[in-house]
């Protein structure tokens, strides 16, 4: 589904955050990228989403090159993204937030209604809260709203940047359950997270990003050995 080849992203001239990355995100699976702080995970998500332009390399979605497109255009091609930071529209209601998520289908009233129903089924927490101002929701629910809103455009590929950040353990479990639901509904998921356990648990494919480079990657089962060693390194700072 998504092919990234030789991607290099710079920050302010000459500082390379991502160095020549290549990875592959298969359809209808959960692909996770893990790595220590500052590895460039958020940058990777933002670059795929179109918020950052790469210096070199290509990003191809279902055969279409998207790395030249603006963020808005990529939504039309099936990209949805949930940013790391709080990004609900705080002064608007939950329903208004969701409707804005459906911007690209706003012309078709019927499709919009159906999608809203569909999304509310996937995210029942929001059903009772449609009239509330988004800024008044708890952190966890805001996160749920952000994911629901991103789903309103029926994306082929959903990008999640640290979905568990700042959430209580119970909320983290809840969010990951929702993510799993999405996978079952034919959405390809690409996520980065610092919460290694949950993230790797939920994933089918895992890549490890360290200091801007992919250290290893592939099916979770196949790379579990090297994965385990790397994690040990981070946690105990021992070099093997």
């Amino acid at each position: 589904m998504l092919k990234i080849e030789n991607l290099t992203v710079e920050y302010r001239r000459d500082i390379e955050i991502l160095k020549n990355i290549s990875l592959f995100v298969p359809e209808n699976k959960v692909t996770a990228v893990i790595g220590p702080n500052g590895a460039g995970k958020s940058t990777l998500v933002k670059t795929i989403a179109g918020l950052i332009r790469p210096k070199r390399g290509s990003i191809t979605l279902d055969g279409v090159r998207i790395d030249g497109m603006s963020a808005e255009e990529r939504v039309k091609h099936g990209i949805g993204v949930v940013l790391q930071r709080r990004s609900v529209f705080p002064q608007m209601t939950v329903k208004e937030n969701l409707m804005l998520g459906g911007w690209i289908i706003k012309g078709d009233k019927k499709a919009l209604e159906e999608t809203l129903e569909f999304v509310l089924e996937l995210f029942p927490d929001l059903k009772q809260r449609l009239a509330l101002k988004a800024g008044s929701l708890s952190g966890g629910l805001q996160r749920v709203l952000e994911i629901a809103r991103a789903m309103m455009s029926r994306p082929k590929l959903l990008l999640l940047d640290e979905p568990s950040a700042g959430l209580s353990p119970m909320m983290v479990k809840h969010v990951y359950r929702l993510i799993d639901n999405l996978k079952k509904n034919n959405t390809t998921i690409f996520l980065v997270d610092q919460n290694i356990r949950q993230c790797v648990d939920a994933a089918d494919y895992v890549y490890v990003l360290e200091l801007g480079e992919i250290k290893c990657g592939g099916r979770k089962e196949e790379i579990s050995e090297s994965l385990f060693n790397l994690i040990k390194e981070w946690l105990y700072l021992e070099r093997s």
Partner: protein
Amino acid sequence: MLAGIEVIYIIQLFLGAILLGGLYALVAVGLALIFGVMRILNIAHGDFIILSAYITFWLSQIYKLDPLLTIILTIPIASLVGFVTYLSVIRGLTKSFEAPIVSSFGLLLILQASMLIAWSGDPRSIVTPFTAESLVLGPYLLPLVRLIAFIVSVAALTLLHYFLNKTYLGRAIKAVSQDSEAASTLGIPVSRIQALTFALSVGMAGLAGGLLSLLLSFTPTLGPEYLLKALVILALSGIGNILALLIGGLVLSIGETYGSFFLGSGYRNVVAYIILILILLLKPAGLFRSLKEREV
């Protein structure tokens, strides 16, 4: 007896101020729109208003149309000017340091100088059959032009409120003003929304300028005075709420009216300056409560 006359006069001033306040709110709303959506302070805002006053003036002179009709015509012309300005000046400006504010300063110079060159510094105003007429309400007189300005302003503000809160496009504008990055991730075309907002803002300024041409005589250098009024209202009311802007407009108008009554007409604007500086000092974190600073 003396006290009685004074009270009537004071209430008369009050009524006149209220009517003017509606127009002031309209003056402010354009500035609020641009600042809300693009975080740019358009210093040339007042000059767009004056330019629109001239447009209305010349349209009514040349085509001998009913002044109210020309005011309506001025709106799309002003919006077009706004759109062109956005494309040529505003779009793609480095948000770094003060490029936007300096550019709008340059715009101010361009507009004022062009108007001076084209139409000289002679004061103009539009005189209509009803310019001197007033509606009589008991012992009070409501000048017709002010009444019209008030009604039209409030109507426009109400329409704008409806547009921003009940239509998809309006909500998209609000979304871009609350979080433009998030909006772009939903497929909302941020740059186009900004262009639209700029055009809309100058359109509002167009309406304000048109109404203004009925109310007083104007010269090309009058712009900054109205910019100041808009700034004071924005400082008082914030940018999120149109009703708050209306109240802010009323407050400013009342303050100015009584200020110049007690201090003399030369000090009319000083009242506004002082209010502004006081507000800036008392809220040093910035003017607008509803904005969250995303810095560092």
